[in-house]
């Protein structure tokens, strides 16, 4: 499957969805005005990937800022990863800086809402 790479901008995250390299990562900042439009191609990509995923998928979230509009799109990504887990192993890593309580809390919220293996990983 063709990889999907989006470079970070001032208000949107860097996105790497690369099955060949086995790298799946959303990082940096996500505060777009229109989160729906931004995440649509990402959700479409994962939907398609769920049909025939790698044996193992490790999906990393390493975000600095997330607005609420993005948080609603991110839960959809995670729910799609749950779908991926029907055909392959999936593990989600949610990275947060040790001082960032809000980011930890958001990760904990997602973890609670899904059944896919979900790790909260403190950095620094």
């Amino acid at each position, binding site marked *: 499957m063709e990889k999907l790479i989006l470079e970070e901008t001032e208000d949107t995250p860097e996105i790497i969805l690369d099955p060949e390299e086995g790298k799946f990562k959303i990082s940096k900042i996500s505060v777009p005005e229109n989160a729906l439009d931004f995440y649509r191609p990402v959700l479409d990509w994962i939907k398609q990937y769920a049909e025939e995923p790698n044996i193992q998928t490790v999906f990393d979230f390493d975000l600095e*800022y997330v607005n609420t509009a993005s948080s609603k799109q991110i*839960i959809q990504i995670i729910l799609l990863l749950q779908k991926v887990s029907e055909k392959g192993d999936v593990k989600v890593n949610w990275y947060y800086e040790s001082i960032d309580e809000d980011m930890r809390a958001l990760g904990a919220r997602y973890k609670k809402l899904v059944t896919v293996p979900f790790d909260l990983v403190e950095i620094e």
Partner: protein
Amino acid sequence: MAKESTNNLFRAAYDLFQRIGSTDFEYVYRGYFNHNITKKILILADKNVAKVTDESQSTLQKRIYYIMVEGLQNITHHQEEIANDRNFDKYPGLFAIQKSGERYFITTGNIVANDKVDELKGRLDVINSLDKENLKRYHREILTCGTISDKGGAGLGLIEMSRKSGSKLHYKFEGLDDEFTYFYLQTQLPSDDNDVADESVVHSHCSMEGLMSLHHKMKAENLQLLFNGFFNQENLLSLLAIIKSRSNMPLTTIKISNVMVEMLQNIIKHGAKAEDNNVGARGVFFLGQTGNETILTSGNIIHDDAAGVIAQRLEFVNGMTKEALSDYYDDILLDFDSTDAKKTGLGFTDLRIKSDRPLKYEFQPLDGGGTFYLLQTAIKTTK
């Protein structure tokens, strides 16, 4: 105001909003200056100037930029000169850019040692007494034989500011204590040589006296950031960058940023936009500190009939315990079918969860029609 608000910041936001024209703005930063903050302030100011000037004014835009750079460098130089940072904590620096009609006012403020005041005042008076030709000559004189300090001193920056703006350097000294004096410096562009007469009428809030009075208010309420102008995604990102550059309180900074994004994006999305500008929704935003709390205050125009729904949603989140709110948050997070229109959205829910006290709000009728919607959140400051 229909009914005088008991909230000082709400009152101030309302007054500031009402006093400027629909294409005007005033952005004021009060606090510690470092290279990063200076850079971000420049970006914010320059982008906003660019938005309201056209191509024929590119020279003006460049001059404004130049004056801002000189002014900001002045502040950091003074900051370095005064060895003890504690003094700067006590008497923070000031940068302001105001647009009123076709005129721009750039004001800086910083402390100087009392024994330097006379020398500085002397220099300013010399510069102000010279016409264009003589200023040029004076500039060359200092360049070739003046004693130039390692900070590029000898008033070169001041001379350049005067030359680039074609304006007199307006200044004011305000005694602080037996050691320091506060030095205000203001440049006006385009050159004010020709229309000094009508100035007090049109631009009084930007004049030196107007700006000083604003600064005194900011001091009294301990405001660090005053934003009276246009809310758009670009300005939000610039503000976010400025907040982030104040690196002294990392934890609080993250919390402030998160709350600020929700507050301002709400305005960008729902705030009523004036018909005569395409720059964004007009509004006011303050960042201030009271005791151990950081207070974020916003004000913007909404349609009169929107107030009821907003009040209802705010009461809804204010009336819930944090636990109930958290459960509610999960519900909306997983509710992909409903359109945002009827339900209280994630934004308000998130704000209430992150704010350390109930959300304060108020609605005030505006003179020109529409309703001014004020919102306030608070975050406990932790080092």
